[in-house]
């Protein structure tokens, strides 16, 4: 067994027994030389250590199937060869709130919804059976709700008026017999669907687009229900293959 003793740890010889100072110099010199050498080596290695300390791993992208191979599409985290190394394109998100240009479009949408409500109210006076009466009443209240929702979106800018042109053009049909009423109601729903889809293609703010989208998907269903209510059996009628023409706001 070896026991290593360093000058600092050892008791060391008594001062009186120490060798003369001159005789320590070669040992000190060698020690210093050794220390300098080790220090230099450490300084040399320091950048290498720093690089390895800083780096995680260089990013690599690998497609186990090869650059043109298919990948498992059942995982959204599947790795694949990136299409390009170009920096990602930044996009500006569209605004949520209606813009100034959206306001007249939304006012128009509200006006025609309130006109639809009025027309259904007229239709409730027709001779309807219980089921027909329920449907017309539900649709009437739905269009009122749509007008109110648009009013909420527009806030103080809402004028809450009825589109007089639509009301005037359809009053006679909604005042007619049950068959005429149901046919006119189906056409009205199709008109509203086409109009709102057209408006969505023009709106900038996404809040308004989303509101109209939530109205359109239900008004589309209204058309199928009304077709069934009037006894239609052809798929072309039940699925409203012939969509009505979209209305346009006055002046554009």
């Amino acid at each position, binding site marked *: 067994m070896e026991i290593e003793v360093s000058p600092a740890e050892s008791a060391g010889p008594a001062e009186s027994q120490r060798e003369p100072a001159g005789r320590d110099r070669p040992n000190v010199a060698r020690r210093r030389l050794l220390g300098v050498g080790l220090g230099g080596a450490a300084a040399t290695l320091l950048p290498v250590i720093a690089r390895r*300390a800083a780096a995680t791993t260089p990013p690599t992208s690998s497609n186990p199937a090869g650059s043109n191979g298919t990948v498992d599409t*059942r995982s959204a985290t599947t790795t694949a060869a990136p299409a390009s190394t170009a920096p990602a394109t930044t996009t500006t998100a569209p605004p949520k709130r209606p813009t100034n240009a959206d306001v007249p479009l939304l006012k128009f949408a509200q006006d025609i919804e309130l006109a639809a409500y009025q027309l259904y109210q007229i239709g409730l006076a027709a001779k309807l059976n219980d089921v027909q009466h329920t449907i017309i009443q*539900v649709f009437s209240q739905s269009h009122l709700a749509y007008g109110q929702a648009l009013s909420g979106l527009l806030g103080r800018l809402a004028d809450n008026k009825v589109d007089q042109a639509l009301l005037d053009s359809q009053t006679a049909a909604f005042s007619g017999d049950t068959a005429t009423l149901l046919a006119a109601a189906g056409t009205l729903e199709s008109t509203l669907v086409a109009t709102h889809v057209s408006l969505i293609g023009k709106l900038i703010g996404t809040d308004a687009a989303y509101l109209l989208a939530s109205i359109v998907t239900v008004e589309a*269903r209204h058309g199928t229900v009304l077709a069934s209510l009037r006894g239609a059996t052809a798929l072309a009628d039940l699925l409203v293959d012939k969509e009505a023409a979209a209305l346009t706001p006055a002046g554009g």
Partner: protein
Amino acid sequence: MSHQANDSADRADLADGVDGATVVGVGNGVVGRRGFLRLGGLSVALAAVVAACNKNTEEGRLGRIGLAPTTTKLPDAPVTDVALLRTSASLQRSLLSVYNKVKDDPELLDPTYKPLVTRFIADAEAAAKVFDDATTGDGGVPWTCGNSKFDSVLINPSYQRITVGAPATPEAKAIVPSDDKKRDILTLVHGMESIIGASYQQFVTLLSKPALRATTLAVGVGNARHAALLALMINTARPDGYVSTDEQSAAEISTDTTPASGPTTTGQNLGATTTTAATKGGGSAPTPLVAPSAIPATFGSTAILQIIVGAGDENGTRLKVSLQTPSLNSFEYEYLNPSC
């Protein structure tokens, strides 16, 4: 290690009492083991300090010493218009796969509904093409398969439960195929048409171009009408098949003549029994089915739509599937390649 005797009395004393001990001097210019250990420890500590004090935190990395295993960087997956259009097409193709499986199987589809399904197939193919063309027009590559997530998580398990049932497990008995496969297939496709229409409604807020929003919603209008018609076929009660009872209640006009008053509401009896008595004679009643309505709500909903399919298990529980509009884990991102 060479042994160098040291004529220091104290050093020699250290060796006393230890048989065979050899004193290795360090006072003569040679670094001993202890010195090497000190140097090694100093190097490691120095490296750790460098690693900790480096700018790793700023760059979001952990400090490491030495080599680390390579990692694969995940691809960028932004939700672009192209990704949404590809997803939209994928939903139509998922729907198509179900229709194509059932249209010629009288066990799964009443033959009287074959013209309806044939029409729905044509509509779905046309809709998929609309999205393919829009994808190409926006500079992307069309997605020509079903939606990966929908197929694996929602549609295939539902279809399996309806047509085959479920095998026995150590914890549960086997489940037989559906007690009414035709009913459940209609329920499944009704749910899919509804959720696809809701998905396109939701995409209106995600698509950046108004023209694409209109195109997508125009297709969604078709899916909504499909769903309405399927609801009328499933739920033949009237007016409940037309509009939900909630809608009927909400539309009732109050006869109260007080201006600006709303309809009266019925007080809720909190003490009423809400549990269902167990059926006599053992066995559990299967999960009650919910009949859909053509107009389920006043506004189009993008909420979860639950469908109930399949035969009940040993406890009578049918399979409940929650259909949701696509989100981050079910978009067909641009970096993905279809394989079907």
